[in-house]
């Protein structure tokens, strides 16, 4: 066991020192003498969140399969340690060997949500790597970004040497091979980047020039050299059964948010909800072989000792061999004391039966992602769930003994009216009435609880709603109060609960999600004003952002409340995720007309993702 990067004095004075000591079960150890490339993978949030994220474990496993590469993990230091590191000039270090990140060849950061952008700056700066990519020289660490937010990485363009657009397992070997040539020769950093930009999925922002129209919109995005590709294509894993999977995931000592084995059963989603970015960029839907999943589950449980397993996918009910997989999980539960958690299951007789076998009905609640309060608005967003589905599902559940229901909604969806908002409260009321109709008095123990919670809609790139305006924070707040009032007027109001989020963070998410390169300076300034952990309400301070927007003459309404013209060039126009602009625009028009689009299994809508030559697009034809 080596020495720790932090002293006893520091470790005894911070919260949860176990976040920083490494040495967890299943970490990879390598002899540095055999290593050509040191790669640090980072999830820019606190350890417990980062360790719960499957993607890092996949990359960690993937890189460490290479005998010439040693991949280690890094997370954002919590604000208590952040302060000490700045005061005492301590550099951010990797967990495995406790080495400063600046000594690594690569720092790979996964970018999962907009509100971690300031943490990204924190990680780069604390690592001792120049914050701006343009200031880095030969010998400095390369900073590469990946993950869903890279479909519009423009606000972060100044801070990254490159982004990897797509699923990580595809082109990284090519990048690292080229890197070895760079490292061992006198190839300049710029030359390496230019060569790398020709590898599929690699986006080097400094090799593209953005020009703007007078009204502030983008005029054009062009590569600055002829040999740099005009479009960067999203990379998808198409041989989904044979892609390496982390069979020996690292097991944290402190309780992570997801303290269990996660089994990815499917990537992508056939449904096509119009607000959902994951449902668009991870097209086409690909499923894993059920026998392989069973084998993975056993091996991973044996290798980790976890007592719980969870399925991961955007919509587990659409996995075709779900029956078989669930019977297997129930067996695991009964024979091996493995708890089973089943997120994202559609509520019907079948799933209720399964759930009654794996969870305590009295303690658990059922979840419906209704998203909108009326059928009209659900058609606008192409959410294929009806009021009838929800009432019928609740009815069956009440008969089965459940008495808690959770409902998820979004406020501020395109075309939303007060009637749709009222519908949120009315739907909750109808479910509670269904309870009283279904369950006779003598069988009711305690009160039925309908918990509705609502987030605010944020338009995301590469969705049909990328053209949509957002409403102002004031209007968000008005709508939230409106719904709250409506809840208070319902007959069964004592059985209903309504919760909503803070609007300001949502507005910022909206600005960053569809932002352009001009926001890089704002991010820099906000960070220099002390912003980190903006995803955490206790650390988030809107005033820092307001000041930075003002100082940089940025009008946030340009990014949020403006409806984009059909032919507007977006800041992410040079990226191509498979789904075509034509399809998305068509979907935007369908949305405004309230026309629904069938899911991929009902009828192919020719979205463009068939270029990947696999998955659901070819299912029926196999």
């Amino acid at each position: 066991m080596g020495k720790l990067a932090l002293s006893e004095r520091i470790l005894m004075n911070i919260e949860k020192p176990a976040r920083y000591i490494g040495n967890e079960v299943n970490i990879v150890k390598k002899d540095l003498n055999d290593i050509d490339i040191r790669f640090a993978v980072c999830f820019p949030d606190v350890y417990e969140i980062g360790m719960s994220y499957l993607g890092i474990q996949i990359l960690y496993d993937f890189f460490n399969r290479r005998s010439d590469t040693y991949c280690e993990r890094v997370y954002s230091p919590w604000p208590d340690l952040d302060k000490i590191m700045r005061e005492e000039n301590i550099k951010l270090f990797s967990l495995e060997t406790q080495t400063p990140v600046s000594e690594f060849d690569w720092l790979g950061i996964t970018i999962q949500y907009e509100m971690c952008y300031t943490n990204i700056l924190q990680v780069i700066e604390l690592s001792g790597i120049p914050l701006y990519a343009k200031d880095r020289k030969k010998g400095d660490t390369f900073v590469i970004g990946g993950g869903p937010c890279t479909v519009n990485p423009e606000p972060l363009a100044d801070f990254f040497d490159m982004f990897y657009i797509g699923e990580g397992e595809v082109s990284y070997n090519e990048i690292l091979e080229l890197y070895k040539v760079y490292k061992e020769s006198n190839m300049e950093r710029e030359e390496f980047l230019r060569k790398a930009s020709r590898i599929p999925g690699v986006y080097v922002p400094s090799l593209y020039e953005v020009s703007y129209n007078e009204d502030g919109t983008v005029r054009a995005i062009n590569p600055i050299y002829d040999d740099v590709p005009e479009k960067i294509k999203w990379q998808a894993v198409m041989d989904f059964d044979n892609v390496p999977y982390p069979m020996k995931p690292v097991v944290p000592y402190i309780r992570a948010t997801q303290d269990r084995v996660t089994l990815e059963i499917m990537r992508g989603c056939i449904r096509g909800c119009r607000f959902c970015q994951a449902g668009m960029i991870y097209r086409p839907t690909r499923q894993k072989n059920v026998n392989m999943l069973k084998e993975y589950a056993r091996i991973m449980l044996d290798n980790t000792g976890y007592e719980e397993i969870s399925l991961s996918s955007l919509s587990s009910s659409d996995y075709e061999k779900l029956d078989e997989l669930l019977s297997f999980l129930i067996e695991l539960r009964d024979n091996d004391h493995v708890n089973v958690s089943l997120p994202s299951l559609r509520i019907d007789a079948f799933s209720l039966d399964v759930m009654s076998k794996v969870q305590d009905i009295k303690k658990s609640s059922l979840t419906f992602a209704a998203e909108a309060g009326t059928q009209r608005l659900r058609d606008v967003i192409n959410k294929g769930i009806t009021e009838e589905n929800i009432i019928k599902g609740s009815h069956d559940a009440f008969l089965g003994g459940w008495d808690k229901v959770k409902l998820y909604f979004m406020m501020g969806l395109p075309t939303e009216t007060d009637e749709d908002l009222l519908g949120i409260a009315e739907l909750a009321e109808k479910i509670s009435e269904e309870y009283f109709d279904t369950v006779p008095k003598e069988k009711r123990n305690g009160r039925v609880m309908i918990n509705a919670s609502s987030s605010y809609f944020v338009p995301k790139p590469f969705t049909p709603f990328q053209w949509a305006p957002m409403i102002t924070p004031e209007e968000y707040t008005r709508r939230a109060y409106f719904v709250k009032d409506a809840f208070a007027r319902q007959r069964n109001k004592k059985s209903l609960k309504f919760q909503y989020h803070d609007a300001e963070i949502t507005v910022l998410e909206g600005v960053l999600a569809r932002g352009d390169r001009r926001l890089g300076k704002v991010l820099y300034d906000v960070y220099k004003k002390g912003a980190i952990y903006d995803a955490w309400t206790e650390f988030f301070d809107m005033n820092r952002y307001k000041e930075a927007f003002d100082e940089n003459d940025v009008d946030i309404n340009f990014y949020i409340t403006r409806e984009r013209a059909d032919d507007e060039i977006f800041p992410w126009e040079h990226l191509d995720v498979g789904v075509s602009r034509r399809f998305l625009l068509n979907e935007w028009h369908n949305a405004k007309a309230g026309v629904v689009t069938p899911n991929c299994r009902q009828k192919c809508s020719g979205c463009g993702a068939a270029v990947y030559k696999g998955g659901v697009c070819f299912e029926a034809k196999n």
Partner: protein
Amino acid sequence: MKLRIKYEKTGVLRFIGHLDVMRLFQKAIRRAGLDVAYSKGFSPHQIISFAAPMPLGMTSEGEYFDGEFNSVTSTKDMMERLNAVLPDGIKVHDIVLLNENAKPSMAIVSASDYYIYKNEECDKDIPALLKEYIEPMMNKATVEVVRKTKSKEEMTDIKPLIFDLKEYEDGIYMLLESGSKANLKPELVVAALCENAGIEYNRYDYMIHRLETYMGDCKALKPLSCDGENF
């Protein structure tokens, strides 16, 4: 069948909290494939319980937990299987099959002994500076210290809880009452010595290592593992 398992927690794992050690063992028992018993109900859990909580920052070679098993093999086999899957810093030293009438370890802990030694990162050698204050303290009838509880601070006499206190190798040895009846933390004794010596007290300036956890009367202390036999 009830087993009592003795283990050490050393090295960087001193920064892992008590509950985390529990979760670590639950997973290790599964990885080792031991036939542990589970509680009934919808979220079954392993029937194991720990003898004494261990504060962050302390290492130990005398920790215990009890576990209910459906079947057992032998001390040697079970130790080997556990040690093969435990991380660096945690190691099982002994496993005994508990006697019929053995009480849970948590209920019978009566004392622990500790070795206080120098923190190599600290310029001051705290134990060396405190040595000359040991005898005077042991010669006093009472040792009054301020004890903080959740709600208040009060003066208490810790002298009756100090069974032994002496120089030991390059540091200090102390045998203190612990358990549910009365529990004296070694930090309090070090703090009292520091006060007598006029040295500023910081927990991180020195290291604590627990040597053993005991049961029984203070005149006839026995390690917790004496409550059963190897098998």
